[in-house]
């Protein structure tokens, strides 16, 4: 991890305008957000629907620009329209429904889509497409039609389409929400590998607490503000707060919390099964 800032939001505010009785009513979705994500980080963003997390995600790619405040992506102000493709090449986005992101009827053509747009020469493109497909373990499907693949496979294709651009960062907006457990595992493994092996910064927006527990840092959003921003074990130790805003904690964290409420004295920062098993062993065996 270096100190290079990939995404830096400063007092970021954003409002949607919707017409009502001839007047425009402003609905403020982001209410002054400060987030700094450094190169190489693996960050999860949690929050219930409508908490503003997807709106934030769209700001990292200049799909939306702030109503007030600033967001710098790889040091570029996203309002600078001349450099919009620099931003989009360096911060790729993956969305929830893989079906609605795949453009071409052949896997490799789809992976090449972004490269075609930024004008990479054919030979170089061929190399990058093959590489990207091998990275997500979908190379053998390169000539298949995407609609016959499983959800997890499709989502890995969309990830390949992003990493072919060789971005510094990937922002994934609930990439596993529509997948079955096997697909979810594949996608999360792929994302983790991209972060660990290739040093790509990852921002993972998710509803699944177990996915968030595996990251380096968890940001919790609620009604347009950041309410927690820390390492996972610290964040999840706020069981009451998280439940109040409609989120969950990993089952083991909840168990520890419940037991401690009854007078036991376990470490409240437990978030993995292994930690929980060890803690329970100690208290259950001691005599």
């Amino acid at each position, binding site marked *: 991890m270096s100190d290079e800032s990939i995404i830096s939001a400063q007092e970021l505010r954003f409002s949607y305008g919707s017409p009502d009785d001839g007047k425009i009513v402003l609905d403020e979705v982001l209410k002054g957000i400060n987030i700094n994500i450094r190169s190489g980080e693996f960050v999860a963003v949690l929050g219930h629907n409508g908490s503003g997390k997807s709106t934030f995600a769209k700001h990292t790619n200049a799909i939306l620009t702030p109503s007030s405040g600033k967001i710098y992506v790889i040091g570029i102000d996203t309002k600078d329209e001349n450099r919009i493709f620099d931003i989009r090449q360096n911060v790729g986005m993956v969305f929830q429904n893989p079906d609605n992101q795949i453009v071409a009827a052949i896997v490799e053509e789809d992976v090449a889509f972004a490269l075609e747009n930024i004008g990479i020469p054919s030979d170089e493109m061929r190399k990058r497409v093959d590489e990207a497909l091998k990275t997500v373990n979908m190379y053998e499907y390169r000539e298949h039609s995407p609609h016959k693949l499983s959800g997890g496979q499709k989502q890995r294709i969309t990830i390949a389409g992003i990493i072919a651009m060789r971005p510094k960062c990937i922002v994934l907006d609930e990439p596993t929400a529509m997948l079955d457990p096997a697909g979810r595992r594949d996608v999360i493994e792929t994302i983790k590998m991209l972060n660990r092996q290739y040093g790509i910064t990852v921002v993972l927006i998710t509803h699944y607490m177990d996915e968030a527990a595996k990251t380096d840092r968890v940001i919790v959003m609620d009604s347009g503000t950041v309410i927690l921003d820390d390492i996972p074990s610290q964040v999840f130790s706020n069981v009451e707060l998280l439940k109040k805003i409609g989120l969950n904690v990993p089952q083991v964290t909840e168990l520890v919390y419940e037991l401690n409420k009854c007078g036991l004295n376990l470490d409240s920062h437990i978030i993995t099964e292994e930690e929980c098993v060890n803690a329970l*062993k100690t208290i259950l065996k001691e005599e």
Partner: protein
Amino acid sequence: MAILRTENLTYIYGEGTPFQKTAVDNVTLEIQKGEIIGVIGHTGSGKSTLIQHFNGLLKPTSGKVFFNGVDIWAGKKVLPDLRFKVGLVFQYPEYQIFEETVYKDIAYGPSNMKLDKDEIKRCVTETADILGITSDMLNRSPFELSGGQKRRVAIAGVMAMRPEVLILDEPTAGLDPRGRYTILELIKKYNKTTGCTVLIVSHSMEDMAEYAQRIIVMNQSGLFCFDKTADVFARSEEISQMGLDVPQITKVFNELKKSGIVFDDEIYTVRYAKEKILEYISRRDGTGLCSKI
């Protein structure tokens, strides 16, 4: 008498073509009235195909399906009204919404049943009541609602037909934790108030641990088991090998068992785990730790 029963149910896709595939293989099971039943299995295990037989959307290649003891395919066509007696809510049901108002959309099913106007109104308002759909919402366009609300309206559309069996295919898919909890609680409430048998197809063993009394496990087109929830969780190692996600709690207690800490019961929910651990400690120490369980 069982409300639903299958006898050697087999379904083959694309018979006689090179793409032939047995989707459901020789499944025999009986579902009793009033239960909440979980249906789990990995993608392609045949669970979705199986449930589409229960309301006659698919006709078995061989074998039989009985509703209240009557063979649903005894005649040339499926038993009349079966679709109203066995309600089926598909995955992402909000994509079937089409009417201008929530009321009209929920009324679509009941009006297909050729009920009179008052009867339809009663069906809609009663269902809306159970699902917490306010009268203000009933007059709004369903397309203005949030994702979770739309889902509720779509489910209400099937419930309003007052089926004797309600089958939901992954009713919580794509929702956030609060949305998932709300939907499952409402389904439970519906089961309690109406006594309707409910089948929930789910990928989440965690949710099934909370809500299902019995669980059907499908694996590779066949019925792996159909048992009480506790008995199914007793086989969690096998289930996990099928590629399904076993809850964290179950994994923790499986580990504890391996290291010699054995509980007399299958533990698969946080609530029960807490109870059992406290019981274990107070028995060992002879002290009543935390009486306020």
